[in-house]
């Protein structure tokens, strides 16, 4: 991934904070029907809507994109290679799971899965990337030394 397309490493913390806030807002909307009154739009039966859930989902998508596109403190050739492999694994796993869902879930249940499928490629990528870069080397036989 070209450096010009990536955010500075320091953007990880703001992105994480936005992710936490957006997920919290999304859960409040989903579980407790929470709505911001000032986000109410439209007056007739067709356009009447509250945009709180749109705000929450936009926050989740933007923060995940931000986390995916943040450089590491030292973004070298090995990190770039792990990044590329992690995207490939994420896409393969995501579509393998989707294929299973195509044949096992129907109707509204499948629509619900499609909704979460908007986020799963980025979530799987982040999981694979940080596992491979920071967690797995600590458990290898030789380990990382100072």
């Amino acid at each position: 991934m070209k450096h010009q397309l990536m955010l500075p490493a320091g953007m990880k913390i703001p992105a994480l904070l936005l992710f936490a806030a957006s997920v919290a807002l999304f859960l409040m909307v989903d579980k407790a029907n929470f709505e911001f009154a000032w986000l109410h739009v439209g007056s007739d039966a067709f356009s009447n809507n509250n945009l709180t859930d749109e705000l929450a989902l936009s926050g989740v998508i933007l923060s995940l994109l931000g986390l995916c596109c943040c450089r590491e403190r030292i973004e070298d050739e090995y990190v770039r290679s792990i990044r590329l492999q992690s995207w490939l694994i994420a896409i393969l796993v995501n579509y393998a799971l989707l294929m299973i869902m195509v044949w096992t879930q129907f109707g509204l249940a499948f629509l619900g899965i499609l909704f979460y499928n908007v986020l799963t490629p980025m979530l799987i990528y982040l999981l694979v990337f940080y596992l491979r870069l920071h967690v797995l080397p600590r458990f290898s036989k030789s380990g990382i030394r100072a």
Partner: protein
Amino acid sequence: MKTRLRSSRTAAELTQSELAEKAGVSRQTIHAIESGKYVPSTVLALKFAAILQLEISALFELEEGDWGN
């Protein structure tokens, strides 16, 4: 590819962090190369050779399997 980066680094009394800093890469990169999980680019291999003051062939060597398709 066979690597002697770890033995050459320890012979030069450098830690993974020190070698990483001199080469401008992360510690994870040094670890991955030393454990044979990652083959460095030509530029990085030449940097290691220059830092450790060795010929590149003293650090990296082709193995039989590297000739296969």
